């Protein structure tokens, strides 16, 4: 049975986690690797003698000793990592990959954009308590690690985590009313999440492995794990935390809206931008080989620069970054998964993430679209309904095509 048929009686296998969840989950993957559930595992691993985490694809289980399914920071967005690995064809071996929910959502978008090919990739998602701001972690020394450890244990962030995570209400699977755990769905299996790892069980020393499709059940079976634990408790906690987070998100957005309302205020947000385009380069759904806004189209002649400067007495250089940010927004915001990678990478700490995730939340609903929810939903700008958005037309035009509701793909 698949995730879509999951019923209330859906159960999870239990994994003891006395030495902490990182070890437990890693152990589970090592075992899966040894038992040949897949030939390689892709997950973040700490580089020896450093505090930095990088994605590794691993065949030799020993290399997973320093692995962390939930590293304290999100270094490279998992979706982007997965795409760099598979955009020119699926790798020649089966891979198990552990993704945070926001990384999984990015991956879903990239599948639709043909930037990821997942034949024989076993996606495993995990409840995510959030990550620390990259800079805090890099500069913050060891106590950052402790802060994160605390976060892992108690899930109550004390402003230590990234704003994007603080207000992230999609830190787990979507839970429907009858406690269905819903992975990013995909009929044609374009995006098979086979197991979700629940960290919000009754018992801190336990981890729930929720099989979401037959292949997931098979994996658990291979590892001698039987799904017998009901999900109610976990689901309840997820829903509760989700409510809390949704509230935070709403409040956060509202507050931020005030901060940036009015053109001047909005401009001021990007005042410090130095045009390094780090935000775009780390954004998982900015997949272009060359960003349109880096292309030579942008160059003016010396005279044009002079003329434009004369109009206002002064011309900011490099040319007003707003064009770049709004332009980029128009390209990707409908696929923005609010992962916050952009904000992490900004050398001058512009709240890029806040802006984009706010706009994402305000635009995606117009298309009844949620980025990363399902690999089957067509991208909003690749499809249309004949009768939609009449309000933007004159009534007469609108009447002309009251055709039946066919969702056609452009």
């Amino acid at each position, binding site marked *: 049975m698949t995730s879509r048929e999951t019923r209330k009686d859906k159960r999870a296998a239990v994994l003891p986690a006395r030495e902490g969840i990182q070890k437990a989950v890693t152990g589970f993957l090592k075992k899966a690797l040894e038992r040949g559930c897949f030939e390689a595992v892709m997950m973040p691993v700490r*580089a*020896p003698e450093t505090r930095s985490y990088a994605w*590794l694809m691993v065949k030799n289980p020993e*290399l997973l000793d320093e692995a962390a399914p939930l590293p304290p920071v999100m270094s490279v967005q998992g979706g982007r990592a997965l795409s760099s690995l598979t955009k020119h064809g699926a790798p020649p071996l089966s891979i198990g990959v552990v993704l945070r929910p926001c990384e999984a959502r990015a991956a879903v978008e990239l599948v639709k954009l043909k930037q990821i090919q997942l034949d024989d990739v076993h996606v495993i998602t995990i409840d995510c308590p959030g990550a620390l701001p990259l800079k805090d972690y890099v500069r913050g020394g060891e106590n950052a690690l402790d802060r994160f450890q605390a976060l892992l244990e108690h899930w109550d962030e004390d402003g230590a985590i990234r704003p994007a995570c603080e207000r992230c209400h999609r830190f787990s699977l979507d839970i429907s009313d009858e406690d269905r755990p819903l992975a990013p769905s995909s009929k044609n299996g374009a995006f098979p999440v086979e197991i979700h790892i629940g960290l919000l069980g009754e018992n801190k020393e336990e981890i729930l492995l929720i099989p979401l499709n037959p292949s997931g059940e098979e994996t658990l079976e291979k590892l001698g794990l039987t799904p017998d634990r009901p999900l109610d408790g976990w689901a309840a906690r997820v829903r509760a935390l989700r409510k809390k987070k949704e509230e935070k998100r709403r409040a956060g957005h509202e507050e931020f809206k005030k901060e940036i309302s009015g053109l001047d205020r909005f401009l001021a947000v990007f005042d410090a931008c130095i045009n390094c385009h780090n935000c775009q380069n780390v954004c998982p759904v900015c997949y272009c080989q060359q960003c349109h806004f880096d292309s030579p189209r942008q160059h003016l002649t010396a005279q044009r620069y002079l003329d434009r400067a004369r109009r206002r007495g002064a011309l900011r250089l490099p040319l007003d970054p707003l064009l770049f940010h709004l332009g980029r927004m128009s390209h990707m915001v409908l696929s923005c998964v609010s992962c916050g990678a952009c904000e992490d990478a900004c050398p001058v700490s512009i709240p890029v993430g806040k802006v984009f995730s706010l706009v994402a939340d305000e635009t995606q609903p117009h298309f009844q679209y949620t980025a990363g929810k399902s690999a089957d939903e067509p991208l909003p700008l690749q499809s249309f309904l004949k009768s939609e958005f009449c309000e933007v037309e004159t009534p007469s035009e609108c009447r002309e095509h009251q055709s039946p509701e066919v969702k056609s793909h452009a």
Partner: protein
Amino acid sequence: MTDDFEPRIIGFLCNWCSYTGADLAGVSREKIPTSFHVIRVMCSGRIDPLFVLRAYLKGADGVMAMGCHPGDCHYLKGNYNARRRFVMLEQIFKTLGLDSTRIGLWWVSASEGKKYARVTTEFSAETKKKGPNPIQKEIFI
């Protein structure tokens, strides 16, 4: 180093001098080290330092580039460009503490079959002494 270690060496040979020299070595039945993999380019000037770097980072135990002697380049001066690029690359290796003696540039003319056999054998022997390229152990590169 264990004796069964056979260094994997890549040789970039210019088509006109060095590759012909290599053929001559074969015709005169010279011996060359096994695991010496020849990649033909038209001119040593085509050898982008990135080729050497890539081979090195992918774990080649040694990389040899060969071209016509200065002044004899089939394309007039390409080998002078090659020479500068190698000086540059070797200096980068030295500064970064990478073993710059694992890469190098040799002049081998079309008539120097013997030299071809000699330099490849010597280089392979030295490389064998050094053991495998340590970069092979680095995962996080």
